């Protein structure tokens, strides 16, 4: 019994450290196109659908728990309420397959979020946004250790393209950065848990739910930008729509026994974007062996609803039909 409890705790810790935060918005500012990133969120609001996002990682075994394969299937729907305000609803189905013992699966908590773009500068390809994410406690399955409490995460987003560099650095112009800084605050500081020991005694435990600094960024090199605005190097279609990218998805607990210890992944990959959808695939490389010693994978199909059916999907309650995501 105690072994099961430890296994569950180990999985909960691993999940909290590795769960994929599904990425959302794509957008244009000036002549810069920013794709929706896979592992970190980006600063745009848009009408779009990520379905599915698939991630795979084999978690490290511990003294209490065997190595476990983790597969996540997730999706997210995003909707603009105004040109600069958007909301999102996301969910994930988690499958855990330990090397020893039976597999478990279930839904993770729903995630509801809002984002407001408060600063745009088209000539400098710069965008800033504020967001608030709500992990709705109790909506997921206890089998995959979805938390029973809410977590609120205020966020600051940024996006910056480097098309304003001097011509002497022209090959750097297709570079862009996006990033997010978030402060995840659990609504319950301690969670009361009842555990039965091997001798039959019932123990009450109150593990701390740490506040976590969630941060991440992406470095991307847009080949369409290179070909169309800087130098035509002869890359043929459809390869000229590719964006090599490296994402960093990181978490640093602020309190608790792991306070100050950063975990997360570095994800090199490729995004290909078209008119109506984009495809992305990344390797998932843990930055340390706290969670895994293995390389995982992350893939996503992402639909631009505002381009597929603008009159349907870009309707807003106060601003009418916005139309496709327009360059600013």
């Amino acid at each position, binding site marked *: 019994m105690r072994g099961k409890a430890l296994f569950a705790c180990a999985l909960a810790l691993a999940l909290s450290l590795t769960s994929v935060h599904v990425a959302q918005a794509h957008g*244009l500012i*000036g*002549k810069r196109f920013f794709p929706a990133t896979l592992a970190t969120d980006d600063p745009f609001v848009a009408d779009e659908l990520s379905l599915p996002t698939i991630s795979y990682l084999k978690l490290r075994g511990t003294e209490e728990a065997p190595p476990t394969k983790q597969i996540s299937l997730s999706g997210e729907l995003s909707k603009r309420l105004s040109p600069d305000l958007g909301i999102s609803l996301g969910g994930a189905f988690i499958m855990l397959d330990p090397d020893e013992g039976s597999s478990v699966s279930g839904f993770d908590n729903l995630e509801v979020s809002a984002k407001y773009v408060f600063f745009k500068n088209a000539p400098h390809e710069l965008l800033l946004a504020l967001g608030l994410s709500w992990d709705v406690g109790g909506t997921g399955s206890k089998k995959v250790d979805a938390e029973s409490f809410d977590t609120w995460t205020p966020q600051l987003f940024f996006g910056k393209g480097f098309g304003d560099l001097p*011509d002497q650095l*022209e090959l750097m112009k297709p570079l862009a950065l996006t990033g997010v800084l978030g402060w995840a605050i659990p609504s319950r500081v301690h969670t009361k848990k009842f555990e039965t020991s091997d001798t039959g005694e019932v123990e009450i435990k109150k593990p701390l739910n740490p506040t976590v600094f969630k941060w991440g960024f992406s470095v991307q090199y847009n080949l*369409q930008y290179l*070909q*169309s*605005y*800087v*130098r*035509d190097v002869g890359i043929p*279609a*459809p390869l000229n729509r590719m964006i090599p990218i490296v994402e960093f998805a990181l978490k640093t607990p602020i309190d608790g026994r792991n306070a100050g210890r950063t975990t997360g992944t570095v994800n090199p990959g490729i995004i290909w974007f*078209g*008119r*109506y*959808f984009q495809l992305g695939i990344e390797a998932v490389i843990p930055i340390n062996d706290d969670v895994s010693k293995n390389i995982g994978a992350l893939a996503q199909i992402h639909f631009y609803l505002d*381009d597929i059916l*603008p009159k349907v999907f870009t309707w807003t309650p106060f601003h009418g039909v916005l*139309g*496709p995501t*327009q*360059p600013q």
Partner: protein
Amino acid sequence: MGRLLAAAALLLAPSWVWAHAFPDHSEPRVGHTLEASPPAVRIWFDGRIEPVFSTLRVEDADKRRVDKGDARVSSADGTLLEVGLPSLPSGRYRVYWSVVARDGHRTEGDFPFTVK
């Protein structure tokens, strides 16, 4: 399976499916150096563009407009935006374009070229 392949081909087809107007290629080529002044600047987009809302101009290094002011969408090719040029002296030039695709989606951009 055949239907799936057809749907995939439709989604991945490069040209007419793309209502979103991004440049496909141009003459002069983006960022290239020419031995002599070109007679015109031509940009082929990956979808048809609206003639009324599409603009194209060429400026020299001092930001003086140097094209002939006759920018137009080709009547024979709805994806081609072009403007005539006089004989240009050696120097670096920049092309500015703005187009509206048939779905109303506006895109804009610029690129350099050099005359040797």
